[in-house]
């Protein structure tokens, strides 16, 4: 299969612990991209990234080069890069791998971005639970300062750059751009009204780029190998480059797999060793908890931004969660609804109240206490949450619920009709212990 032959780019150092050290990273060509970028005009770096077609790997899929180009030119005001390492989307664990196994790749990506937009400070906002990854990053940053890669004169160029780790404290909403900025500033992580967008008024009132870990990890390779090389990978000119897929749930070998963007779900499932214990595929979520659920008859679809959008779902963070036919969809979606209810920041009424209702209704249906009108009520709550809140969390919460009602309505109805969940509670442990 073609996908298996993909030569890793972002994860090339995963099996190579030497890359944790500066020497080891440099042996594999590390920091050559930064050296090359520093010899280019900043705008030329932005153009190269723009031309590569790199789209944000955090969830929204916005053009990274475009985002950089929105930052005002000139040296009058301070500018910032905030690297989004708050990886909290359920099912997502790719950025942790990148930080734990190849910290210098991320630092190099941050440094190139800062040169391109002429920012002199990076904050890597990492979720508070990732203490191990944070320690690895701290050590790599320290080594980079000592070697003159960070600090007053990056690689002797005279360009000044500071990079700091900043640990969050456990809140999903801080992965939202403006929630992250608020949190970085020492406040509750409640998203801001937009516009102004962070590129104009971001951290500490200054122009700010916010990019996901994986997005920035791509940057050194684009600079070193060129936009044309990057564009030669992927489905089409709108879906380019290598991509990490984090696959979990009912598969034999859950893990992070790197392929060209746009691998069909069925091929990814093969890479992951197929269904857990030979089970039958029932459904999968292609892009984290916020994405609409897809069914087994959609297994042939390519996991890229546009194919997923066309199918009514999204690539999101490419966290692929797989469910076999022993899975109760009501129970699964009720668990996701519980998550969104917990994580709603409470600022906007439709989201604060709506996420609470979604959890309440789905939980009672799962427990055999659903009422005949509940599916209609779920639809109504979803409708009232759609487009009525400041940030995307409300719409994220609707994603799985909406697809449950559309694609698994019979299963929902059966719960209500039988006043019980029809699925036996299955044990999953390999040694059969209980």
């Amino acid at each position: 299969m073609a996908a298996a032959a993909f030569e890793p780019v972002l994860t090339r150092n995963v099996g190579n612990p030497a890359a944790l050290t500066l020497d080891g990273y440099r042996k594999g060509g590390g920091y050559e991209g930064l050296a090359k970028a520093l010899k280019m005009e900043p705008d030329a770096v932005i153009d190269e990234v723009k031309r590569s077609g790199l789209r944000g790997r955090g969830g929204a899929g916005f053009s990274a080069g475009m985002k950089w180009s929105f930052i005002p030119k000139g040296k009058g005001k301070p500018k910032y890069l905030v690297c989004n390492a708050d990886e909290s989307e359920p099912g997502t664990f790719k950025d942790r791998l990148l930080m734990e196994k190849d910290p210098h790749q991320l630092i190099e990506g941050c440094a190139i971005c800062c040169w391109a937009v002429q920012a002199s400070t990076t904050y890597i906002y990492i979720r508070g639970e990732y203490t191990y990854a944070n320690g690895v990053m701290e050590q790599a940053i320290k080594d980079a300062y000592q070697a003159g890669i960070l600090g007053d004169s990056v690689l002797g160029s005279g360009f000044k750059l500071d990079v700091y780790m900043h640990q969050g404290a456990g809140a999903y909403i801080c992965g939202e751009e403006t929630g992250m900025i608020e949190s970085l500033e020492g406040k509750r992580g409640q998203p801001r009204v937009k516009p102004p967008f962070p590129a104009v008024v971001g951290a500490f009132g200054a122009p700010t780029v916010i990019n996901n870990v994986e997005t920035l990890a791509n940057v050194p390779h684009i600079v070193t190998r060129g936009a044309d090389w990057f564009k030669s990978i992927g489905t089409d000119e709108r879906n380019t480059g290598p991509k990490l897929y984090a696959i979990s749930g009912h598969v034999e070998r859950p893990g992070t797999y790197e392929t060209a963007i746009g691998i069909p779900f069925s091929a990814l499932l093969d890479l992951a060793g197929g269904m857990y214990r030979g089970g039958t595929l029932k459904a999968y979520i292609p892009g984290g908890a916020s994405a609409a659920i897809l069914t087994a008859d959609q297994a042939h679809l390519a996991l890229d931004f546009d194919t997923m959008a066309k199918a009514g779902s999204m690539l999101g963070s490419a966290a692929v969660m797989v469910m076999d036919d022993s899975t109760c969809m009501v129970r699964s979606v009720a668990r996701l609804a519980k998550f969104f209810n917990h994580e709603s920041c409470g600022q906007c009424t439709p989201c604060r109240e709506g996420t609470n209702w979604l959890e309440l209704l789905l939980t009672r249906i799962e427990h055999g206490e659903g009422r005949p009108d509940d599916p209609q009520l779920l639809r109504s709550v979803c409708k009232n949450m759609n487009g009525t809140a400041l940030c995307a969390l409300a719409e994220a919460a609707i994603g799985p619920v909406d697809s449950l009602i559309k694609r698994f309505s019979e299963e929902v109805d059966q719960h209500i009709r039988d006043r019980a969940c029809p699925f036996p509670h299955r044990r999953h442990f390999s040694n059969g212990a209980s």
Partner: protein
Amino acid sequence: MSDPAASPSPSPAVSDAAAAPAGSTEPGGERREFSAAARAQLQELFKRYPTREAALIPALHIAQREWGGWLPDAAIAAVAREVELPAAKVYGVVTFYDLLHQHQVGRHRIRICTNLPCMLRGSDEIMAAVRQHLGVGENEVTPDGRCSYVHFECLGSCDTAPMMMIDDTYHENLTPERVRQILGDLD
């Protein structure tokens, strides 16, 4: 490609491990101020940001370590003084974040991931095993002060589900039997 072993923390700047460093305490034993070492850490932090307020969350992490894993009123008052914010503002931030605690916690803090990927691989049974072994409810502290536990949202280790986090360490690919062993081995 996952890391099969539990991931120990080298020496994170912010660790959840409870420590009992020397520092100023009231005659009654309740700590009132940061230790000198923690205060030096705070001074370093303030240099990183253009505003003092930006150091608030890192400062709260440090305070939590100083005050035994949670933030009694005295800790919040001390943070407010250092960061030069009204205490009300600090309370507002503390209540927002899951890793900041306003109630007493065990010497070991156990967080069991129960989100969908872990649920699909049996986190209900992991939760039950923890509850049964410790004999207390969620957010309660065992009578010996050793442990407290909570169910938690996705901890980003879905490839090794089901999993739990004890203090700073991820314990992965769990079974109820393994959970009992791990809990039994805690000091």
